[in-house]
Every structure is written in C-alpha cells, then in structure tokens.
C-alpha cells in the first residue's frame, strides 16, 4: 500500500512539473506572437491583423487543450508503469480467458451457420484446425434440384472465418436465385471481390444436381477436384475447366459444365485439409491415398450411407496423420444420385379447410401411377389419412401437415408419408369396425383408417421427434 501511495505522489509531481513547463512554453510563445502582431515595424493591414488575432485566439485554445491531453497521457503512463506485476499477470490471464471464450462463441456461431438438416441423399462435416476456420460447405434441396457447394478460404483462424462467413452468406443468397451455375459463381465472385480488402481468396466448388434425372451442372473455382464413384468401374477425379478462385478478380468470366450421372453414382467433395494432412514425417495424405480410399468405398457403394462415407474418409485421414496435430481445416461432403425413393414433399400450414389442396398435391406427384383403379384406391386412402389429421390432430385445426410421396422404381412400391406435430395419436391402435353387424348396430366412426388399411398394402405409424408419422405403401 505504502509503495502505491508513494507512486501516486510521484506521479502527481511528474504531472505537475510537465504541466508547468508546458504552460510556461505556451505563455512565452503567446507573448512573442502578441509582440510581433502589435509591433509597428511589421505594418500589418486591418485584414491581416484580424486574421492574426483569430490565429492568436486559436493558439491559446489549442494550447490549453494540449494541457488537458498532457495531463491524461501522463496519468495513464504513470498508472501503467507503477501497476504491480501480479495485477498485470491477472489482467493478461483475464484477457486470455476472454479471448478464449470469445473464440468459443465464434466457433459456435460459425458452426451454427452451417446447414445440418441433411436431406436423405447428402451428408457433410466440417472440422476446423483451430477454434474457427475458413472451410465451409452448403447445400439446399428445392423443387427436385440439390444445390451443393464446398469451399476453402486462404489462411486459417479468425481472418479466414470472417471471410468464410462473408462468402457463405453471399453464396446462400445467390443460390436461391436459380441462376445458371457459372453466373452464380460470377455473382459470388463479384460480391466477394468487392468486399475483399486483404487480398484473401476462396476456392469453391459449386454444383446443382437434378435428383430425378441425374443431370449435374457444376463449376470449379480453383478447388480440389471432387471424387466421382460410379456404380461400376473405377472412381475418378471430376475434370473441371480451370476457373480462378473467388475474390481475386472481379468480373471474371466463369465456365460451368455438366455431366449425366448414372443411378448409384456417388460424389465426394473435400478440402485440401484432407489431401494435405501430414504425418510427423511431413509426408502428405495426397491424391493417391484418396483414390485408394475411394476404391475401397466403391466396393460397398451400393449399401453404404453418405454419413459413413464422410466419417470413413475423416477417420482414414486422422489415422494417417497419427499423433501429428491437424494443421488445416477439413471439410468433407458425400452425396449419391439415387432416383429411387426420392420423397416429393410439402408442408401445409395452416391446414384448416386445406384437405382438398393437400390431396391434390399428393395426387399430382410424379410418383403416382396413371392407372385409374390404382388412383382411386390411393386417393381414397390419402383422403382418409389427410382428413384424420386435418380434423383431429390439432385443437382448432391450427397446425401443419407435411405430406410426401416416394417411389421405389425397382420394387415398384409407392410410399405416401404424412407427418404432423399434433396430439400423439396412433390410428392403427383403434379397433376395426365390425363389418358384419347390422345397420342398427353399426357405428359411424373408424371407417377412414380401416379403408386405408384395406386399400393399401401396408400402413405404419411411428411417433418421432414430437411428430406423428403415418407411412402407407402400395405396390403399383
């Protein structure tokens, strides 16, 4: 304490001395200036004199302001110099802690920006080398078109993550515009180039797959070539026209291209954190090891899921790197073109008085058969199932119903699915009506679901994530 009060006294004396010297200098300058101004020998005109007076006034004001500044600067300097060492250490560790917690929040925000609601035919993962990173992926499925992208910002850590955030926001916006794939990249490039003050760049692979026809449009802006695993034959790197990375040069003309995928073809996109993963000996994972891995995957391509594919590659890379810490961000995405069992779905909200609209939507699905007899049975089952939700699932009829169809082209099985968040209710647990009783004994309820059971080949109910899910199947 004594030490601190001594330091205090000392600091105030220093401030005093500095202030006095400064004030003295100011007074001397003012006096000289005044003498010069009023000296007859200088012969100032009226105008010049007025000007000089203003200058004089300004000098005094600025001078006094300077005094205030000196006061605060001195105080600050003295305070910092005399702070005890422990306090300084404490401050540093508090600063570190704060930095760390801020990075953790930043990581949560960055991870939160990633889409994790994977459609059936795609899976992806991101694993930054530091808390935050510059790799990213994105996808969306709309109107039978699966758009997907994977990218890598030059550098790592916070600067890369900021650039990643910028790029992915722009990309998501542009993706929604339904532009040709090369125009899409041009828009992204122009926007990113404009906002890019530090000469960073982003390698990006963007594609759009028609999930029914297998038509793939893609454009590669300096990114690693994606791996194609066809249903038969060897995996290969997808050749792409060279386009420069995003952010380097505005108004660059990007070239897109297209490919027809065979059913069962899998695509694996990744960032250079995969191929450049290093062992302690500094040898890298490389393209050859990636291809060997793809060969192995090709053996079980028909049965393996995208999530397993992604995890398999990640584990293979990690195993290769051994104890060597991950030195770059890693992003991996896998998707498969499988025209079978694609769910065409839509969520209706609200559903009150919407039964007929919902039924018509399902009946208009491309999965529906043309045969009139089948359509009659399907329509009746659908109507009964939809009515059941519309009338009873929600109190007052306010709520949503998501309906969809899918078709297994090989087995020729049509699936109709209904999902709602209403009161948990298993319609299959209701007793069947007694079809042998007389008119007087017959009850009017329970007929709808009974018809579904009889007209469809199978009907299943499950309660999942707070939703009632009813699945009906019919051989067509």
């Amino acid at each position: 304490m004594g030490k601190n009060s001594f330091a205090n006294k000392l600091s105030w004396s220093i401030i005093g001395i500095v202030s006095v010297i400064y004030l003295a200098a100011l007074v001397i300058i003012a006096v000289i200036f005044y003498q010069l101004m009023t000296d007859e020998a200088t012969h100032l005109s009226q105008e010049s004199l007025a000007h000089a007076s203003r200058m004089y006034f300004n000098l005094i004001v600025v001078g006094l302001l300077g005094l205030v500044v000196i006061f605060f600067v001195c105080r600050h300097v003295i305070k910092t110099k005399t702070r005890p060492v422990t306090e300084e250490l404490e401050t540093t560790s508090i600063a570190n802690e704060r930095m760390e917690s801020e990075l953790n929040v930043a990581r949560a925000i960055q991870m939160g920006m990633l889409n994790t609601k994977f459609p059936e035919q795609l899976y992806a993962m991101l694993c930054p080398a530091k808390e935050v990173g510059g790799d990213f992926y994105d996808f969306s499925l709309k109107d039978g078109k699966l758009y997907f992208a994977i990218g890598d910002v030059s550098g790592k850590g916070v600067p890369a993550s900021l650039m990643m955030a910028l790029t992915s926001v722009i990309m998501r916006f542009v993706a929604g515009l339904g532009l040709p794939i090369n125009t899409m990249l041009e828009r992204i490039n122009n926007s990113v180039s404009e906002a890019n003050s530090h000469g960073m760049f982003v390698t990006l692979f963007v594609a759009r797959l028609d999930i029914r026809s297998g038509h793939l449009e893609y454009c590669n802006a300096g990114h690693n070539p994606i791996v194609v695993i066809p249903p038969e034959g060897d995996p290969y790197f997808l050749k792409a026209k060279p386009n420069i990375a995003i952010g380097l040069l505005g108004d660059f003309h990007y070239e897109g291209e297209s490919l027809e995928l065979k059913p069962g073809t899998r695509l694996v996109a990744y960032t250079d954190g995969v191929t450049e993963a290093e062992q302690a000996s500094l040898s890298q994972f490389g393209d050859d090891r990636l291809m060997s891995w793809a060969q192995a995957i090709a053996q079980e391509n028909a049965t393996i899921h995208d999530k397993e594919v992604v995890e398999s590659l990640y584990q293979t890379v990690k195993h290769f790197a051994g104890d060597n810490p991950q030195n770059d961000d890693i992003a991996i995405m896998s998707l498969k073109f499988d025209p079978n069992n694609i769910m065409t779905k839509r969520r209706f909200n609200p559903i009150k008085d919407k039964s007929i609209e919902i039924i018509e939507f399902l009946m208009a699905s491309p999965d529906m058969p043309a045969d009139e007899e089948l359509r009659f049975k399907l329509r009746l089952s659908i109507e009964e199932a939809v009515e059941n939700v519309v009338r009873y699932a929600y109190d007052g009829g306010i709520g949503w119903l998501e309906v969809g169809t899918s078709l297994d082209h090989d087995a020729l099985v049509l699936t109709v699915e209904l999902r709602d968040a209403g009161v948990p209710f298993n319609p299959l647990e209701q007793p069947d009506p007694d079809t042998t009783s007389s008119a007087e004994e017959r009850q009017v309820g329970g007929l709808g679901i009974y018809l579904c059971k009889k007209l469809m080949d199978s009907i299943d109910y499950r309660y999942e994530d707070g939703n009632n899910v009813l699945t009906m199947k019919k051989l067509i």
Partner: protein
Amino acid sequence: METIINNESGKTLVVLKGRIDTTNADQFQQDIAPLMEGEHPDIEIDCSEMTYTSSQGLRIFLLLQKSVNARGGIMVLRNMNPQVKEVFDITGFSNIITIL
C-alpha cells in the same frame, strides 16, 4: 356432386352424380334430407354416375339406411360402379345396404 330427387307414384327415385368427398359431404347430407322424412319410404338410388365416395359419404348412406329401416321402408342402390362397390364391400356396407 349433384343429387336429383323425383317422386313417381309413391316411389322416390334419386340420381347421384359425381364424387362424394370431404368438400361436399355436408352438402350431400343436406341434399338428401327429404329422404329422411315420411312413413314407409320406397327409395331407389341410381349410382351409375357416382364416381367416388369417401368414408364421409358412407357415413351418410348408413344414416339414411338406419332412418329407412326405422320407418319400415326399403332402399336399393343400383348400377354402382365396381370401384365404389368395392368400398361398400370392404366396409361391410354391402351387407346392410341393398345394392343391385
């Protein structure tokens, strides 16, 4: 959905046209309200142009049949298309409603 009702020498002739589904079941029930009145009704319904019925339509047929039975009358449904007939069969309605 169209419901045409004619009375001919004590017999009620009904022609049903179109679909009975969730959109018009209530209307169908109102349309056939006259059939729910009178003693010893004798009702004949031509179903040749009725193309579809959901369980809500069935429910109304059941109410009508119960009402006819209670009043000591008779009701027949004629010329039903096979698909609609199947719905009546599956639900056991063919056992309680006379379909010719």
